[in-house]
Structures are given as C-alpha cells and as structure tokens.
C-alpha cells in the first residue's frame, strides 16, 4: 500500500496528524512506509493537487475526499469534519483507520 502524508509547515496540526497516522497503521497492522512530503510552494501544491495540510492519501485516495475541496491545489490548512460533525484541523484516528480498512477491503475484493 502506498501511504502519502503531505503537509505544509505553517499549519501546526501536522505533527499530531502524523502521530495519529502512525498509531492507526500500528493498530491496523499495516507496516508499509509513510512517504512524507513537505509541500512548500504554491507551484508544488498545484502539481500535487494539494487540498491543504495535513493530507493523507492511501493508494492515492484521500481519507476524506468530501473535504478535499480544492482540486486545483494550494497552500492552506485543511478542514476535516469529524464523526460528530465538528470541524477540526486534524483528522481523527478513526477516520484514518476507516480509510485503511476500506482500502484493504477493496483490495481483497479486486483480488477475488
């Protein structure tokens, strides 16, 4: 599985988000390496279609595609909608784990 973690250092939640990603991977028994990318320029943000910091992609799929609104990509902080509807700059561990489980399930179905 390809695990991308993209961040812009001006958004302070990226360290907590990376810790949550690491914890979710450990919890789900995923041992693949995290590819960490620091998005530093507007040009890089556009090239990566970066919707904001932090962003987590599992095999290229965003863990919350419905809030990855800016398809053009730009340097900004990312808003997530938590399970209880609250807005947060930080994805929840459950959100990340759900993304991992969904991907594992899809992969299993494709192999059948």
């Amino acid at each position, binding site marked *: 599985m390809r695990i991308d973690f993209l961040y812009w250092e001006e958004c302070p*939640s990226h360290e907590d988000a990376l810790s949550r990603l690491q914890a979710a991977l450990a919890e789900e028994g995923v041992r693949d390496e995290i590819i960490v990318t620091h998005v530093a320029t507007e040009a890089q943000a556009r090239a990566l279609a970066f919707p904001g910091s932090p962003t987590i992609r599992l095999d290229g799929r965003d863990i919350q595609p419905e809030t990855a609104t800016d398809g053009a990509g730009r340097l900004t902080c*990312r808003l997530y909608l938590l399970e209880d509807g609250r*807005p*947060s*700059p*930080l994805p929840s561990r459950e959100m990340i784990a759900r993304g991992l489980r969904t991907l594992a399930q899809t992969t299993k179905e494709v192999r059948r």
Partner: protein
Amino acid sequence: MTLATHESIVSFSLPGTDGKAYSPDSFAGVSALAVIFWCNHCPYVRAWEDRVIALQREYAERGVHFVLINSNDPAKYPEDSFDKMTLRAREKGYPFPYLFDESQTVARGYGATRTPEIFLFDRDRELAYHGAPDDNYDDPAAVAHRYFRDALEAVVAGRTPAPAETPARGCTIKWR
C-alpha cells in the same frame, strides 16, 4: 513586533459586516475588550468558533466585548472576502462585530501573525492576555487549560491573568 503585555491598545477604524464602523472608542466603558484576529477559511478558527461565541454570550452581561478582525488578503483566499465574512457572521449569528482590515495595517500594528489570535485588554485598555483560546483546538472535551476564560475571569476581577501569554495556534495571516 507583537504588542507586549501592559502596552496600550492600538487604535483602528474598520468597517463591520453589520454596516457600521468600529474603533476602540465604540467600546468605551466596557470592562474588557478582546480584539481577536480571525477569518473565515481557517480550520483552527472553525474549530474554536463555537467556543468563542459561547464565551462572548456568557461574558456579555459582565461588560466584556469581543471584536473580530479579518486581515487576510481575499485575493489569495476568496473565502475571506468581505461578502463571505458577512455571510459567515449571519449564518453563525455572531454576537460580536466582525471587521475587515483590508489594508492589513491593523494586524501589522498589533504584530498579529495567526488566526485565531486573541489580544485581551483590561478596563484601562492595556494588554492583559495574548494568545490562544485554550490548549486544545481539536477537542473541546479534552481542554485542560482554558487560557482565555481564565484571563477573562482575572480581568473582570481586576487581577492580572496567569499566564498572560500563550502561543497562538492557527493559520498564518495571509499577507498581500
């Protein structure tokens, strides 16, 4: 340079989303005035928004007023335009004025760098507290230190807040 504790309020005259213009004199006589750098697009603002609204409602009857200022460049962040500010204030029923610092001179005068970033002034309009609303933007139930609330309590009681300064955590102000 950022305004330091005990320094006097920096004046401003800015348009609000309610169609009125505001300056520090608009709040003459109130026991405390919080000038809060704010915007629409920032997820940290969104995460703290309901808590800040609730605090204003709670402390209004004790003579405390908040005023929000958006200094972001709307050319870079269209969600922070004056029209979008007006919509947000209406949608959320903001119980405080929401002002637009189009020239960004007010943010520069305060030395503000983030949204949200609170500058709380006491009755003499000297800076009593500067920083974040509390120590947990992500989860209101997990807040351990209610910096702003504690500072409000101190200022209303005529005491010096402790701490008087915390790091502002949020988005950077988007300069032209």
